[in-house]
C-alpha cells in the first residue's frame, strides 16, 4: 500500500532518531574495551571455565603420527584419565599418546612432528595440590611417567581405570590400535604391565573400555569396545564429494566384536565374550557407559556405535546379556536411522530417578538425548529439549553430564572436532582442517537446555580437534573440572570457576572387603525441598576416557540435606543422615543404617 510522501519522509527521520541513539550506546559499551579473546571485558569476567593446563604443569601435545596417507585411525584418538593413583586424595592425570603410523614410516615422515619427550608415549602427571589454610589452592602437576614405569608406546586410543585386584589402588587399562595393556598399580608409585598374566589383551582396534562388576561377585570385570577391522593391508582410499582424498568412515570396514572379560578374583580374567553373548553382534563400538538402566539392581552396558545401531546390553543376571536397544528405543534416532555415535554418558537429567542417555554424533546429525521412562525404555527428545539444533553443525566426541553451576541439575559439555575435511578450512590451506569449538549446555530445570558456550570462557572459543574428555574435581573445591584431549593438539585442563560458589556435596563410596571405589553404586540425595538427586559411582563414559569416581552433587542454595541412601552393587541399601556439605565424605559399605 502506498504511503504519502510526506508521511514516508517523516517516518524515515523518526527511524533515524530512534535507532541511532541505541547504536551509539552500544558503540560506547564496546569502546570500554574488548579483550584479546574477542569478548567484551564485562562479559569476560563471568567466564565459567579457564584453561590452566600449561600453567599447572600439564604440558602435553597429542601426536597422531599422520604422514598424509589418511590412515583411518590417525584422527580417532585419544583419551585421558583423572584418577588418584597415589591415594593422596587428589586426582592425578594420565594422557594417552599416539605414535608414528604406517609400515616403514619414521618420525621424519610425520606431517606434524611430535612435541615433547621422545619416543612419544602416554604420560602420567601427579597432582601435587596444596590447599592453604585460607582455603585457596595451588594446583601443580609433575610428570612422573618415568618413575611410574608405565611404558605405553603403542598407538594409544583410550584408558579405563578401576581397581581390578581390590587392593585399594587404582589400575589402568590402555586401549590401542593394536594390543592393549593392563597396568597394575604396585602401590609405590610404579605400575607393572600384567596384560599377559591377566589375560586381557585384545590385538584388534580397541577404543573405549570400562571396568564394571557385572556378575556382582565383588571383583571388577572389564568390557572392551572394538571398532572396525582396518589395517594397513586392507586399507581403502576414500574421497570427499569434492573428489579430494579424505578419511574413510566406519562403513568402509567390517565391525569387530566387543569383548567382555570376567574377573576370576585372583588377578586373572576369563574371556567370556561369546558366553556372555556380548560378541554376538558387532557394530563398531566407540563409546561405552555402564549403569542400571532398567532398575533391577544389575549393571547394564550401553554402547555407542559408529554408523550402526547402538547396543543396550541388558544384564540377564546369569552371566549373559541381551541387546534390547531396538525395543528400548535407544538403538536409532527418532527417524529410525542409526547415527554415528562417538561419546556417550548416562545421568538423571530430569531428576526423576533414572539414568537418561546422551551421545555425540556426526555433523549433520545432532547430539542425541534419550530420556528414560524409568523402566529402561527411551525416547529421543533431542529436539524437544533444545539440544538438536545447536549441535547439528558439529561432530562431537567426549561428553558428559556435569552440574557445572551446582544448581542440582545436570548440564552437558561436548568436545567437538570433525572427522572429515571442513571445506572452508581446506580452502584457506589450513594444515589440519578438522577443528571445531566445544559446547556447553545449561540445564534450565524445566526440560530444556540452553547453549551457554559464548559465556563459558575463552577456552570454548578455541577451535580444536576435540576427542577425549575426563571429568572430575581436580582441585577438590567442589565443582567439576574437565580434562580435554585434542587430536594432534594440546591437552586442556578446564578449571571450573563457578560451581564452587554454591553449596555442594562430595561422596566417595567404598567397599568393605573390596577396599575400592564401588563402581556401579547409586546414591540418592534427599533434599530438604526439591527433587531427590540420583547419581552413580563410575569412571566410564565420555569417549576413550576415565573420570573421577567420586560423586559430586550441586545443592544450589540449600545448606542442608535430609538423608543419603546408597544402593550398593551387592544389593544392600544403606542410609546416612547428618552428612556434612561443602566437603567430601567417604561412605563405606556396612557402616550406614540398613534400609530393608
Amino acid at each position: 500500500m502506498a504511503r504519502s510522501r510526506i508521511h514516508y519522509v517523516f517516518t524515515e527521520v523518526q527511524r533515524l532518531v530512534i535507532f541511532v541513539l541505541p547504536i551509539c550506546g552500544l558503540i560506547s559499551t564496546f569502546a570500554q574495551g574488548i579483550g584479546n579473546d574477542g569478548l567484551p571485558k564485562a562479559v569476560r569476567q563471568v567466564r565459567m571455565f579457564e584453561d590452566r593446563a600449561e600453567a599447572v604443569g600439564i604440558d602435553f601435545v597429542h601426536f597422531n603420527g599422520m604422514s598424509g596417507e589418511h590412515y583411518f585411525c590417525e584422527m580417532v584418538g585419544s583419551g585421558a584419565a583423572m584418577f588418584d593413583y597415589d591415594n593422596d586424595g587428589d586426582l592425578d592425570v594420565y594422557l594417552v599418546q599416539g605414535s608414528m603410523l604406517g609400515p616403514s614410516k619414521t618420525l621424519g615422515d610425520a606431517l606434524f612432528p611430535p612435541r615433547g619427550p621422545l619416543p612419544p608415549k602416554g604420560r602420567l602427571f601427579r597432582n601435587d595440590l596444596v590447599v592453604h589454610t585460607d582455603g585457596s589452592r595451588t594446583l601443580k602437576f609433575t610428570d612422573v611417567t618415568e618413575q611410574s614405569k608405565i611404558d605405553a608406546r603403542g598407538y594409544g586410543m583410550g584408558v579405563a581405570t578401576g581397581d581390578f585386584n581390590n587392593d585399594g589402588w587404582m589400575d589402568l587399562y590402555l586401549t590401542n590400535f593394536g594390543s592393549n595393556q593392563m597396568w597394575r598399580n604396585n602401590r609405590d608409585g610404579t605400575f607393572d604391565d600384567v596384560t599377559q598374566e591377566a589375560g586381557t589383551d585384545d590385538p584388534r582396534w580397541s577404543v573405549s573400555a570400562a571396568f564394571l562388576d557385572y556378575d556382582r561377585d565383588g571383583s571388577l570385570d572389564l568390557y572392551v569396545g572394538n571398532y572396525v577391522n582396518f589395517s594397513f593391508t586392507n586399507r581403502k582410499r576414500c574421497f570427499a564429494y569434492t573428489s579430494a582424498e579424505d578419511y574413510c568412515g566406519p562403513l568402509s570396514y567390517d565391525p569387530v566384536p566387543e569383548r567382555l572379560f570376567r574377573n576370576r578374583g585372583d588377578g586373572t580374567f576369563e574371556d567370556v565374550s561369546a558366553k556372555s553373548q556380548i560378541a554376538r553382534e558387532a557394530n563398531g563400538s566407540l563409546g561405552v557407559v555402564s549403569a542400571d538402566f532398567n532398575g533391577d539392581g544389575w549393571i547394564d552396558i550401553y554402547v555407542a556405535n559408529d554408523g550402526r545401531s547402538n547396543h543396550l546390553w541388558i544384564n540377564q543376571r546369569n552371566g549373559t546379556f541381551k541387546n534390547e536397544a531396538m525395543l528400548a528405543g535407544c538403538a536409532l534416532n527418532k527417524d529410525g536411522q542409526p547415527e554415528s555415535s562417538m561419546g556417550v554418558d548416562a545421568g538423571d537429567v530430569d531428576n526423576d530417578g533414572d539414568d537418561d542417555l546422551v551421545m555425540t554424533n556426526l555433523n549433520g546429525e545432532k547430539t542425541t538425548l534419550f530420556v528414560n521412562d524409568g523402566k529402561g525404555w527411551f525416547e529421543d527428545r533431542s529436539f524437544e529439549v533444545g539440544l538438536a539444533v545447536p549441535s547439528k553443525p558439529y561432530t562431537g566426541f567426549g561428553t558428559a553430564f556435569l552440574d557445572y553451576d551446582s544448581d542440582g541439575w545436570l548440564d552437558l559439555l561436548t568436545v567437538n572436532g570433525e572427522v572429515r575435511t571442513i571445506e572452508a578450512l581446506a580452502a584457506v590451506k589450513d594444515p589440519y582442517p578438522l577443528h571445531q569449538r566445544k559446547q556447553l549446555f545449561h540445564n534450565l530445570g524445566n526440560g530444556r537446555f540452553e547453549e551457554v558456550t559464548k559465556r563459558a570462557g575463552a577456552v570454548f572459543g578455541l577451535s580444536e580437534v576435540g576427542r577425549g574428555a575426563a571429568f572430575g574435581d581436580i582441585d577438590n573445591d567442589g565443582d567439576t573440572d574437565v580434562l580435554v584431549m585434542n587430536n594432534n593438539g594440546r591437552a586442556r585442563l578446564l578449571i571450573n570457576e563457578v560451581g564452587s560458589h554454591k553449596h555442594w556435596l562430595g561422596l566417595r563410596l567404598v567397599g568393605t572387603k573390596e577396599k575400592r571405589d564401588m563402581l556401579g553404586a547409586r546414591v540418592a540425595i534427599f533434599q530438604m525441598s526439591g527433587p531427590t538427586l540420583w547419581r552413580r559411582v563410575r569412571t566410564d563414559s565420555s569417549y576413550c576416557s576415565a573420570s573421577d569416581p567420586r560423586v559430586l552433587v550441586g545443592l544450589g542454595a540449600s545448606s542442608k540435606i535430609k538423608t543419603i541412601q546408597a544402593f550398593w552393587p551387592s544389593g544392600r541399601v544403606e542410609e546416612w543422615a547428618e552428612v556434612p556439605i561443602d566437603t567430601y565424605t567417604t561412605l563405606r559399605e556396612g557402616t550406614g543404617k540398613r534400609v530393608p
Partner: protein
Amino acid sequence: MRNGERPILLLSIIASALCFMRASLLSYEESKSAASLGASGRASQTKKTHFRSKLSPIPYPELSPFESAVQQQIREAQAKLDSVKQTPAATDGQLSDTYGELGKVYHAYDLLEAAKACYLNAQTLAPHDHRWLYYLARLQHGDGHLTEAIESYRSLLQIRPNDAPTLLGLAETYLDQSRPELAEPLFEKVLSVDPSCSAAMAGLGKAALAKRHFAKAITHLESSLAIDPKARSIHYPLAMAYRGVGELEKAQDNLLKRGPEKPSVSDPLMEELRDLTTGHRLLWIKGSKALRERRLAEAADIFRRMATASPQDPLARLYLGTALSLLGDRQGALEHYTEGLRIAPTNPKLHYNLALLLIGQKSDQEAIEHLQATIHADPGMKDAHFHLANELMRAGRFEQALPRYAKVIELDPGNGFARLMQAMALVRLEDYEKAKDVLEESHSALPDNVDITHALARLLAACPNSAVRNGTRAIQLIQSVVRATENLDLDQVQTLAMALAEVGQFGRAIELQESLINEVKNAQRTELVPLLTENLEKYQRGQTCRIPWRSDDPIFSPIPGTLAPLDPFKQEASSMRKNNALPTP
C-alpha cells in the same frame, strides 16, 4: 562564529537536508514499485528496477578440490552470471534466473553458503518466484536453521498456498522444532488435496507420536504403509507407537521390517537439483544413495552411466552388478562382475560377489577359486571365509574347511553354524575327540543354540570311540532341546533313540524308532524307511548304534542360505556421509 560564516553554515544544513529527503524519496519509489509487482510474482521482464542495488556479492568458492567435470560445470554457470550482469539490456527476470541457476549448481555440490547467497539475490530480484524461495527453504531446513526455514516456507505459501512439497516441508520443520500441533493442520491440508499422499499420512502419525497419542499414531502410520508399503522407514515410528500401547510383538515385528526408504513424494524442483550432479564420483554418491534407499532400477541406471563414462572403473561394475543382482538379473550381474575383474583382477568385493552368483549356479569349483582370491586380498572378510568353508565341506574337502571355520569363529564368535560345521568336519575326518571338544566349547559359548546341543547329544550317543560316548549326558542334552523347542524333529528323535539304546533302554529305543517309522510312512517319506529300519533292527538285537551320521547325511553339505551380494549399503547404513567409502580397487 563570524558573520560571513553563518550563511554558509545555513546553506550546508539545507543542502544536507535536501540530500536526505532525496534518498528517502528514492526508497519510497522502490517500495511503491515492489508493491506493484502483482500476483504473477516474476520480476518484470521488461525493465530493470532498483532491486539491483540491494544485491549481495556472491562468493566464488575454491574449486580445485572438485574433479574437472564438476569444475567445468560450475565455471560455466559462473560465467553465465558474469555475462548477464555485464549485459546492459538484461532484465531483472533474466538476472534472477541466472543467479538462481548458479545457486542450484552450488546447492547440488553442497557449496551451501554460495548457494544461499545466489538464492537470496534471485529472490530479491524476483520476490514472488517460488523456485528460489523453495530451494532456500530446503537449504535452511537441511542446515538446521529452522526458524529461517519456517519463514521461507511461510512466504512460499503466500505465493502457492496448496503446494504439497512446501506444506510438507513446513510441517516437517515444525516437527523438528517439536511443535506437532502446528504440523498437523499442514499434513491435513495436503491430504485434503491428495488423500493418497503417504508422506502426509506418515507425518500425521509422527505428529501423534510426538504427542504420545499412540493409538492415533498407529492408525495414521498403518494407513501410510497401506498406501506405500515400500516406505519401510514408517515401520520404526510405528514400532514405537505399538510399544506405547503395550503391543510388544507388533512393535518387534515392525522393528524387523524397518528400512531407509521414505514415502515417495513428487518434488520436481528437488529432482532438478539431483539431476544436475555430474562427475564420476558424484554419480557414485547418487548411485550409492539410490542403492541404499533401495531404488534399485535408478541405482542400476546411474551405475550404468558411470560404467559407460568410465569404462576402466571396476567399482562402477561392482555396484552395477550389485544393483542388477538385487533386481534379479543374475546374468547381467555376472557379466559386469567379470568385466570388473578383468580391469581389477584382485578386487576382493568383485571376487566375492561373483563367487556368490556362482554358488547359486552350482559352479562350486569356480566359486571356491573366487572366494580364495577374496580372502587373499582381504583376509578379514569373514563372510568370504564362511562361504569358502561351506563350499569346501560340500566338495568333501574337510581338512581344508577346518581352518576356514576356525577363522570365521575367530572373527565372529557368535556364529553357531560355523562352530557346528567345524565339528562336523572333524567327524568326517573321524577325529571324534576333537569334535567333541569343539562341540562342548560351542555349547558352553552358545547354550541356546539347539543345533549345537543336538549335535553334541548325537555324538555322545553314537560315537564309535568309546572314550567319547556318554549316553546319560546325551539324554540330558536332548531333554534340554525338548525344553527349548517344546518338540523334537525326526533327527532329534533318532538321537534320543540312540541315546536310550546306549544306556541299555532298548525297549524304549525300539518304541521310539517304530513310532518314527510310522510317522515317516504317514508323511509319505518312504525313502527314509530303510535307514530307520536299520537302526530299529539293531535295537531289536540288543545292539547300539555306532554311526552318529551317515557319510551321505545332508549335515555334511551345508546348503547356502541367502546369497545376497556384498551390499555396502545394507540396513545398518547411516544417513549418507559426504565422503564415505569410495574405495579404489
